[in-house]
């Protein structure tokens, strides 16, 4: 039974970088900007965060460095896509490729280095609970912060004025512009915020999850986060759950292998992706459902001069 508790704990940990990156992309997409550069931003932030953690020993500074690196890269993307109206898909892909090479290049100096040992984190009191303690309350603070961010983002989108403006910009930038809202500035801020969150996800990977730096560390998690935003029909809480589902199935397949389950490991390795596809198919049975939820101007450039 305890194995199941440990599986839940592993799920929460594995889902966190996916959730953080996904939430960052969600802000982008809700404003109508599709940023395919998640992988690149995560990698550059991972190396930045790792380097800072190496020299200062502070998690917080590492996350801040990651957020800054992610935001910086996102700013370049934002400039190109929002003010120069370059194609969002192509620019995002270019960002991903650039991030991969650039992070490998600057990270050469910190490969193979080891971070200082960290004490295990526990929620005081609750961690001693017999089964729930192991399952839920022995996580790094960022895991809980991610849950808070998801809830906060939902509140921001649906209960606040600024969130409403952001969503309006995503749905119909022409109308928002006609009403006098600074569409491009809103989109740019959304891109920055999204980049910062992707950056925190990358730093989390290199400073807490692995914890080490080596090129290509994210191994495709940025792309998975992109899929998660569609999977979650652009709603933050659903995205969080989707990230846990994905992370959980990934950990489950290792658990099943360890238990000697006689399914070839290659099939088990496909499980997380199959699970994602199945849920996507179920959601898409109702095409109208997707259309209603998707930000209408996603991926389309906006020209205020029209």
């Amino acid at each position, binding site marked *: 039974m305890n194995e199941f508790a440990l*599986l839940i704990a592993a799920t929460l940990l594995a889902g966190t970088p996916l959730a953080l990156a996904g939430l960052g992309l969600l802000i982008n997409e809700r404003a109508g900007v599709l940023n395919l550069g998640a992988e690149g931003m995560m990698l550059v932030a991972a190396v930045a965060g790792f380097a800072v953690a190496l020299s200062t020993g502070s998690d917080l500074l590492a996350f801040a460095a990651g957020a800054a690196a992610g935001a910086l890269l996102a700013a370049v993307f934002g400039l190109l896509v929002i003010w120069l109206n370059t194609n969002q898909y192509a620019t995002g892909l270019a960002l991903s490729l650039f991030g991969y090479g650039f992070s*490998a290049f600057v990270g050469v100096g910190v490969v193979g280095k080891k971070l200082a*040992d960290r004490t295990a984190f526990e929620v005081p009191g609750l961690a001693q609970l017999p089964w729930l303690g192991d399952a839920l309350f022995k996580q790094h603070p960022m895991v809980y912060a991610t849950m808070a961010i998801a809830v906060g983002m939902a509140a921001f989108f649906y209960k606040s004025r600024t969130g409403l403006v952001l969503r309006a910009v995503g749905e119909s930038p022409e109308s928002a512009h006609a009403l006098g809202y600074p569409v491009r500035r809103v989109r740019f801020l959304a891109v920055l915020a999204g980049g910062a969150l992707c950056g925190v996800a990358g730093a989390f990977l290199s400073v807490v999850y692995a914890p*080490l730096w080596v*090129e290509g560390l994210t191994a495709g998690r940025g792309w998975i986060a992109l899929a998660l935003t569609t999977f979650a029909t652009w709603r933050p809480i659903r995205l969080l759950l989707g990230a846990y589902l994905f992370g959980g199935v990934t950990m489950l397949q290792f658990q099943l*292998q360890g238990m000697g389950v006689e399914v070839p*490991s290659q099939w088990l*390795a496909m499980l997380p992706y199959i699970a994602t596809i199945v849920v996507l198919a179920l959601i898409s049975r109702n095409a109208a459902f997707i259309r209603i939820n998707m930000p209408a101007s996603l991926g389309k450039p906006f020209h205020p001069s029209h």
Partner: protein
Amino acid sequence: MPELMNPHRRQLSLAGLSALAATTLLLVGCGKKEVPAAPAAATAPASAPAAKPEPLKAAWVYVGPVGDAGWTYAHDQGRKAVEAEFGDKIKTTFVEKVPEGADAERVIRDLAAQGNKIIFATSFGFMEPMLKVAAEFPDVKFEHATGYKTAPNMRVYDARFYHDAYVSGILAGGMTKTNTIGFVGSFPIPEVLRNINAFTLGAQSVNPKVKTKVVWINTWFDPPKEGDAAQSLINGGADVLLQNTDSTAVLQAAEKNGKFAFGWDSDMSAIAPKAHLASNMVYWGPYYKKAVKEVMDGTWKGDTRTIWGKPEGANDVIKINEAVPEAIRKKAEEAAAAIKAGTRDPFDGPIVDSTGKERLAKDAKPDQAFKDKVDFYVKGVEGKIPAGK
């Protein structure tokens, strides 16, 4: 419409400049040292009149980054040993992070065209690409690690990692408290299966009750996945881990959980001082020096397969943890010495596989063919081998 022309043109030129900048940074940042990534840049060696003997040009092709502190790092150490030995009589090059497949063919061909007289390819998946290029460059010597196909100008070299795995198994069998040990595997090929089996046989030689759990991650290198796999093994009760994958992630996971693990391919004792039981080393330097010397002397012969292990100094288990009890340490050292002297082989009979079938009779000695075709788990390893390689 005139007023639209200007902004578009400005946008286009700005976009063009940034694309150019990005591409330049991309090419610079791709980390390929000394060999240009664009095929157009590679040219045939210049035929300058040589007054004194030109240094021999040798090249290495790596599947991973030199900084992996594991597989590729060990090969690069070997290359550096060659440089140290031959000084200015040799000029070495390497290309890292070459994916197995069509890209590898291009890289190997580039290296041959640039005048390298001997090329080492350090991963199984380079076998077919190298074979193809070998046919096109009969004057160049090709060496492939861990493969099995040869040609008149191509040969295979390998190391006996299972020598190390067996000795590590003894340490694991002595240190486990749960009688469950774990193995993080990359791909279910004979090389990895040999290591799993040797690990188990070694453990069982000091502790017959030991069981081995295996998790396959279907990649040689993915630190977060390696860590996840290690964690799931630990969650399943394993308290000593070994891996066949290329990073320090498994060792770090063991340290985090207060369990034991090993270094693989390089000395990982500094990464996890409490969890580290020993490091399984491979030394490619001696073989690389021999191969280069043969090319210089003109005695290099292709179509052969050379496998070195403990007896030749290619494999060794080092830095055994102080916490290991004296009795276990002695057993490990005895076994290592016997393997080194050639009197013991980890696969000496009797060998029974996990279905109960006898694979090798008692007192029988395994030959190379037996070891090449290991496609089974020995008794004590849980689960079934995933179908297909």
